[in-house]
């Protein structure tokens, strides 16, 4: 009963796109995208949670803008690729028998883990860029832990499928001279179309005709016959594959004696090829489409096509989008207080500066991007006091680590630590102006941090204290 159901399902899923070669092609792209996301994600993670002794590059100053933009863009490109890959390997869902042994069971469990981790990771990652968290678990910790599960599953998946991957790595090994998929039962692919298991290249002459099994009996068979417009003869094995269309006008006429045989092969091959190319054209269109229509939130070139991006560059106070407003941070009163001062604490010396006193120290102008972990980014022009000048004012020794505290009452980024590579960088500022205007309250008035190559959450706003911690 179950077996019958699975066989019917396999028959309904049979398609020229659902073969091992398509799975390898999509798997390569998807694997590459996963690795890109994993690498850029780890970089972003360690920027925010460094292991002891970690140092990071401050040049190019747009490095994080690039890596995180790539993280989000590759993550969005994963959506169509993942859907396509799952669609391609769908017949493996209906394997007969469902479990062949302990190892096979473990493999299927590992694929279930892989698929579910990938779906949850990509879906929650996408919705996170919309700043919406409709799930019962913390996003950041789960996204980080699932990344390891996902990439480990990818490695394990490559291990289990390695014979199939190498067998179908190259196109010329995957299709015969007519463009038909060469089903090789020896490598253990679960994507061999029903009835095609014995087919090898070149096509054996005797069996060249009826290479596809007859339609299954019962309702499935009737549905499939209706789909293909095939005659209702119950026992007749059909000589043609599915995706059949009466296109007599386009069939080549060959004069050779076995014209019907070779011609049928060539026609079938051409149709399979068209179906496959159509499938990949659709996947390519979808991938390019979602990327181009969203990448404008982080990429200047794609800005005119920013139809669905979660942000629009240059929209916001000071010509720049805002992530956390002063109201949300609870600093409306403290940040606008007339007696605001910035306290700078060295090992032996402590000083406090009013805003006018900071200006009097001498200001510098730098161009640095704001690059959010959620993917949007924008270059901006900042004017403020160099961090290293402030540190010199309290006689901080070279190589000092710094801790910056914000006026925010709560939130995970109220306190921010900064290694010496940033603290001593000439472009790291306590910024007072943004894009030629006084810093907007939502951008961190009266003063905020801006440093090269760091995520936006570490560009602390509404600062009140800078301490030399070691």
């Amino acid at each position, binding site marked *: 009963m179950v077996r019958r159901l699975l066989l019917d399902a396999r028959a309904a899923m049979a398609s020229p796109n659902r073969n091992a070669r398509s799975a390898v092609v999509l798997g390569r792209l998807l694997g590459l995208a996963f690795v890109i996301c994993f690498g850029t994600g780890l970089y972003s993670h360690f920027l925010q949670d460094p292991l002891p002794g970690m140092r990071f590059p401050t040049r190019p100053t747009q490095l994080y803008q690039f890596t995180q933009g790539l993280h989000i863009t590759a993550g969005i490109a994963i*959506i169509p690729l993942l859907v396509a890959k799952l669609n391609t390997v769908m017949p493996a869902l209906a394997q007969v028998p469902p479990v062949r042994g302990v190892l096979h069971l473990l493999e299927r469990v590992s694929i279930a883990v892989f698929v579910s981790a990938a779906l949850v990771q990509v879906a929650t990652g996408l919705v996170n860029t919309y700043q919406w968290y409709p799930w*019962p678990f913390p996003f950041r910790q789960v996204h980080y*832990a699932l990344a390891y599960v996902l990439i480990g599953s990818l490695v394990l998946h490559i291990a289990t499928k390695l014979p199939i991957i190498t067998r179908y790595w190259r196109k010329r090994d995957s299709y015969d001279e007519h463009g038909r998929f060469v089903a090789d039962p020896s490598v253990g692919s679960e994507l061999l179309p029903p009835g095609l298991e014995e087919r090898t290249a070149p096509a054996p002459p005797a069996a060249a005709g009826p290479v596809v099994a007859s339609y299954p009996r019962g309702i499935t068979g009737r549905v499939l016959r209706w789909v293909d417009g095939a005659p209702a003869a119950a026992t007749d094995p059909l000589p043609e594959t599915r995706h059949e*269309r*009466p296109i007599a006008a386009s069939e080549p006429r060959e004069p050779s004696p076995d014209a019907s045989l070779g011609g049928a092969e060539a026609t079938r091959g051409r149709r399979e090829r068209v179906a496959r190319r159509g499938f990949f054209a659709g996947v390519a269109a*979808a991938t390019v489409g979602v990327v181009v229509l969203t990448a404008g939130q982080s990429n200047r070139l794609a800005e005119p096509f920013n*139809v669905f991006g*979660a942000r629009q560059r240059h929209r916001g106070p000071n010509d720049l989008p805002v992530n*956390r407003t002063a109201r949300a941070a609870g600093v409306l009163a403290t940040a606008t207080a007339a007696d605001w001062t910035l306290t700078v604490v060295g090992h032996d010396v402590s000083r406090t500066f009013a805003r006018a006193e900071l200006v009097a120290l001498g200001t510098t102008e730098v161009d640095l991007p704001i690059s959010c972990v959620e993917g949007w980014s924008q270059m901006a022009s900042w004017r403020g006091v160099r961090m290293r000048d402030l540190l010199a004012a309290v006689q901080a020794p070279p190589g000092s680590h710094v801790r910056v505290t914000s006026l925010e009452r709560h939130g995970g980024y109220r306190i921010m630590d900064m290694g010496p590579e940033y603290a001593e960088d000439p472009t790291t500022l306590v910024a007072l102006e943004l894009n030629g205007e006084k810093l907007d309250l939502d951008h961190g008035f009266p003063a905020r941090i801006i440093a090269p190559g760091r995520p936006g959450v570490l560009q602390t706003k509404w600062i009140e204290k800078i301490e030399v911690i070691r």
Partner: protein
Amino acid sequence: MRATRIVLAVLGVLVIAFGAYVMVTTVRPNRIWGLATWLVGAVILHDAILSPFVVAVGLLLRRTGRALRAWALVVVQAVVVLGTVLALVVLPEIAAKAHGQKNPTVLPFDYGVRLLVVEGVLVLVAIVVLLLGARRFGARRRRAPYTTG
């Protein structure tokens, strides 16, 4: 090959185990249950709902495709795939905006209208392609029924 596979498999299992370790040490147990429901839900959604749906749509497309030129079918298929993927990305965005913006610079656009416009353009493209395809196919068949296409 065998050695490579064993090394990869062991490495993969170790990395998965590390992920599980990070999970249980950084996420509270009751939250892990929440995550577990989502992980199981994702498999059920894919295996029991999305896959049968895709099979049904594929069969319908196959049935419809019999009356079409191959390239017209390809265009229609590309439009269906692109339209579906865009909806997958933008529908949650619409829901997120309906749920409330944190500030006016987050989700600044009217995504519902934009999705409708883009999907409308896609449908229009598909219709034009189908009409052109049907006309040229018909003309060619009348003119020269036995030449190669």
